């Protein structure tokens, strides 16, 4: 059977297209980038429970755990505290101790005075939703305060290393929780999550 020039051209085009897509798959890298200055991996033995806050409706207190990353970053993570152990509550209400993983929210406190995060916990099973504000302030931060959706300004109690945590009932938007910090030198900085 003889192929017409049009059929040959079409076959060549199809083959070329397949070749092009295959080459792209082979040569375009999709692997994770090299570790960044804020590696989230913990330096062994650097972790500690910084601060806790009660949540009577849910039972176990919330806690913020901090550690220093292998790249020198300051990392914080929010969790629950049971008999001095840091962990999480699953959908079945079981406590599970959390090892020091690469789970912290890490920042460089040489460049900014505070690492600030909000965890959003939706309603699961019998647990109502929670919005948990947590972080760690540098030693030159005199005060960390948050204004809730009720308009009340709350000063956050800092742990020995500057860690803080506060839980709010409901699923709040970050913009509902503007945070103001005051440095020992008197300057103020507002984080409005916008």
């Amino acid at each position, binding site marked *: 059977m003889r192929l017409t020039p049009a059929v040959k051209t079409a076959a060549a085009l199809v083959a070329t297209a397949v070749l092009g897509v295959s080459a792209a798959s082979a040569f375009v890298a999709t692997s994770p980038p090299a570790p960044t200055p804020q590696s989230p991996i913990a330096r062994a033995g650097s972790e500690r429970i910084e601060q806790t806050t009660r949540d009577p409706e849910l039972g176990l207190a919330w806690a913020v755990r901090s550690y220093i990353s292998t790249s020198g970053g300051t990392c914080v993570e*929010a969790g629950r505290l049971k008999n001095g152990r840091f962990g999480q509550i699953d959908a079945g209400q079981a406590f599970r101790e959390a090892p020091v993983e690469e789970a*912290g929210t890490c920042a460089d406190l040489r460049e900014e005075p505070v690492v*600030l995060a*909000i965890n959003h916990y939706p309603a699961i099973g019998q647990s109502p939703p929670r919005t948990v504000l947590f972080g760690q302030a540098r030693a030159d931060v005199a005060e960390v305060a948050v204004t809730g959706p009720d308009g009340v300004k709350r000063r956050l109690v800092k742990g020995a290393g500057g860690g803080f945590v506060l839980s709010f009932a409901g699923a709040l938007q970050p913009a509902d929780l503007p945070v103001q910090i005051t440095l020992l030198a008197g300057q103020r900085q507002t984080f409005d999550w*916008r």
Partner: protein
Amino acid sequence: MTSTSPAATSRRTIPLLVLALVCSFSFGAIVRIAAADYHVTCVGHGFVHGGSLSDGSFFGRVEPGCGSTLRNCHLYTWGSYIGGQTVTGSTATCNAWSWNFGNYTECASTTHVSNQGVFSNHVHKASNWCG
């Protein structure tokens, strides 16, 4: 009636093939990057597996940089929201860990990430997607 010589056909076909190669490579590259579980759009972000592909430990992550001061990383399993994180500041990494929110099927999970001023909200799937 006119006929086309083999030389004339070749002159038309070769540029066409080159064009097809370029277009198909571009298409493949776009699809490859868009489907990746973790990639770089100015900053690294996406879905990160924990110890293995099936231990239920995974992360939604957005690294800092490129002038951004607000980052979001939210987690979904079987299309349902399981929890997430928002961070602010110029150097903080958004890092939502699945274990913070319970015990979920890793291969059926996605992260929805955004980085204000850098990229808008979009989805990254587990690399062993089964959802």
